[in-house]
């Protein structure tokens, strides 16, 4: 009896100290990012954004007094690799997983983090990511279902287009976007004059651009990944395309401007995040990023950075480092810039993991993104 009591106390003490130990020491956060392959631009930028945030957070004391230990692994933009690495992250006891960015990869890898009940942030924008009933997936950018209606409205009201040609990339991201924009255009009474599919990694855009010209649409909507967008813009310029070219964040990103050169000028895009936004905390981020990495961040850098600060904000709200409690608290969470400038814009998360924020209409002028309009969130954020 005495032994049993003593043993029970010993076991409880051990458990308590192990629990206590789990509440000390560095917080493991793992990044699954595309550092090579067609997604190299997006993944590298996302990773750099996260790293910058981690550095700042650690410098100011970490989260709940604990430093963050962040490591990132290359998924090579291959879903199979992303899935396997997600398993590895689970094995290593990650608190939160950041990435992958590409929709095609996160769709596959999130099965692992979901099974292990570990919160997983992604830069992916395909609508179906948050339609699978996964309570552990959280976005760092808009879902296409939110973004596309805004684009369609712009095309109707400002461009006054009655028909639009849609050029999209044949992957999860592109297909989701094409479905969403088609729906949104139809809702605004705009005809889809041409549906032009292109491939990930496609190099030659002479055929697609020709089809766009032949469709005689009033405008062209381009929805491809970064490198392909640059090539498309170059080909459009080469073939002398003179109608408005409209897109989403991937059309006018920093890297795209760098790769496309002059050909990017005049392109308009609806972007959820841009370093050229007028807000002071975004300007501060722009400077810090450039200082750290010697180049201008694109939206993926902002996704990673703001995502990391969301992790900080919500963990502090919960009061402890607990993956399940974190996920629960994320649904319905509102984080304001005045409390946590690192999130870059006031943001609200719904129960599916989607976020609501302001967004911007951007035009490329002389090789720079210029914000022409700020669009409000769907529901006011308080």
């Amino acid at each position, binding site marked *: 009896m005495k032994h049993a009591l003593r043993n029970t106390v010993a076991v409880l003490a051990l458990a308590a100290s192990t629990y206590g130990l789990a509440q000390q020491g560095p917080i493991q956060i793992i990044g699954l990012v595309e550092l*090579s392959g067609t997604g190299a631009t997006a993944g590298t930028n996302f990773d750099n954004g996260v790293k910058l945030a981690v550095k700042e957070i650690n410098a100011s004391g970490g989260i709940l007094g604990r430093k963050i230990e962040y490591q990132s692994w*290359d998924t090579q933009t*291959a*879903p*199979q690799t992303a*899935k*396997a*690495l997600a*398993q*590895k992250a*689970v*094995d290593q006891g990650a608190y939160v997983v950041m990435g992958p960015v590409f929709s*095609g990869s996160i*769709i*596959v890898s999130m099965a692992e983090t979901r099974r292990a009940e570990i919160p997983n942030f992604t830069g992916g924008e395909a609508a179906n990511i948050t339609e699978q009933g996964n309570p552990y997936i959280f976005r760092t950018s808009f879902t296409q279902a939110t973004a596309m209606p805004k684009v369609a409205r712009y095309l109707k009201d400002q461009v006054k287009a009655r028909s639009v040609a849609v050029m999209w990339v*044949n*992957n*999860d991201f592109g*297909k989701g976007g094409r479905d969403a924009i088609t729906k949104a255009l139809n809702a605004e009474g705009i005809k889809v004059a041409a549906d032009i599919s292109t*491939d*990930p990694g496609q190099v030659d855009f002479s055929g697609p651009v020709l089809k766009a010209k032949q469709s005689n649409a009033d405008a062209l909507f381009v929805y491809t990944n970064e490198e392909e967008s640059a090539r498309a813009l170059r080909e459009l310029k080469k073939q002398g395309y003179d109608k408005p070219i409209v897109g989403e964040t991937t059309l006018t990103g920093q890297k795209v401007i760098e790769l496309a050169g002059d050909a990017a000028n005049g392109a308009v895009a609806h972007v959820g995040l841009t370093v050229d936004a007028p807000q002071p905390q975004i300007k501060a981020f722009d400077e810090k990023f450039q200082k750290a990495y010697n180049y201008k961040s694109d939206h993926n850098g902002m996704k990673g950075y703001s995502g990391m600060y969301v992790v900080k904000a919500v963990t502090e709200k919960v009061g402890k480092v607990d993956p399940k409690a974190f996920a629960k608290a994320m649904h319905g969470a509102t984080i304001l810039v005045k409390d946590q400038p690192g999130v870059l814009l006031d943001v609200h998360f719904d129960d599916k993991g989607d976020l609501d924020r302001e967004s911007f209409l951007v035009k490329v002028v002389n090789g720079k993104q210029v914000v022409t309009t700020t669009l409000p969130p769907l529901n006011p954020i308080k």
Partner: protein
Amino acid sequence: MSAKGGGMNKPQRIALLVGLAAYAILPLFLKSYGIYLMTLLCVYLMAVFGLNLIVGYAGQMSIGQAAFYGIGAYHAAILLKLGWPFFAVLPIAAVACFAIGLALGFPALRVQHHYLAFATLGFNVLVYLVMRNEEALTGGTFGIPNIPRPSLLGYSLDGALPFFYFAYASVIVLALVLWWILRSPWGRAFAALRDNPIRAESTGVNITAYTLLAFAIGAACAGVGGVYLATLVNFIEPGQFHLSVSLMMLLAVIVGGSGRFFGPVVGAVIVILLPEWLRFLQDWYLAIFGFAVIVMMVFLPGGLLSIADRFKTSGGAK
């Protein structure tokens, strides 16, 4: 006789058994990612064993093994999701790859030696394109997710460890089958082919038929591997069967030691496991690997296992 087709001496047998036992016990100490890698090695090995038969024993160059890997995998994905039992799907995939291998090899071999290489290259690219474009059948670029794992005699193989042992046992069975084929009269004919096709022809051996058979068997092995791949990862997409995968498989065979029975094992370890252990080297690993292949071709064209020959006193013929 060297370790290639003939028997093994006692120390080699013991080393083999110890190695097999160690590989069987190791996963017990690893977490799911480590077990995944060890299982992936077994699966990859199935395809590479098949390729060694084609390249090393029949002396042909094939740059399309990943296509058969993929055909097997897609068969598995589609049929398993329709509810077909695993042990019906496995032979179907094997037979399909065997038949396609015959169909591909027959016209290509009629012509000339290195044209099989070109035909396999073209075939791989074609298969990849079909996988990527025919969305209705193959899921296109999105691939096929949620492929179910089989259950063996009512025992589910969903877990990492159970599936590992299943795959491990399977690859051993496959290796034994190949070993038996190579030691049979047919197998000895393969050896004759590789060493001197003209002389073999003059003794009445129908080269084309044997080469074709070797090619088809090698393709079937890859098909089997593909079925296991689909059930291991529970997800397949065209990128896993790209031409570059075929090239790596070829290099795995050559680097390990083409024509040596355990060459594929060495090669597969270098391609699958070493990059993981040397992860800190990241991209430099593959750069080193590429240049190492060149150096090896100059100094050690028989592959890594040919180092063993240097220590043998018998010094048998290559």
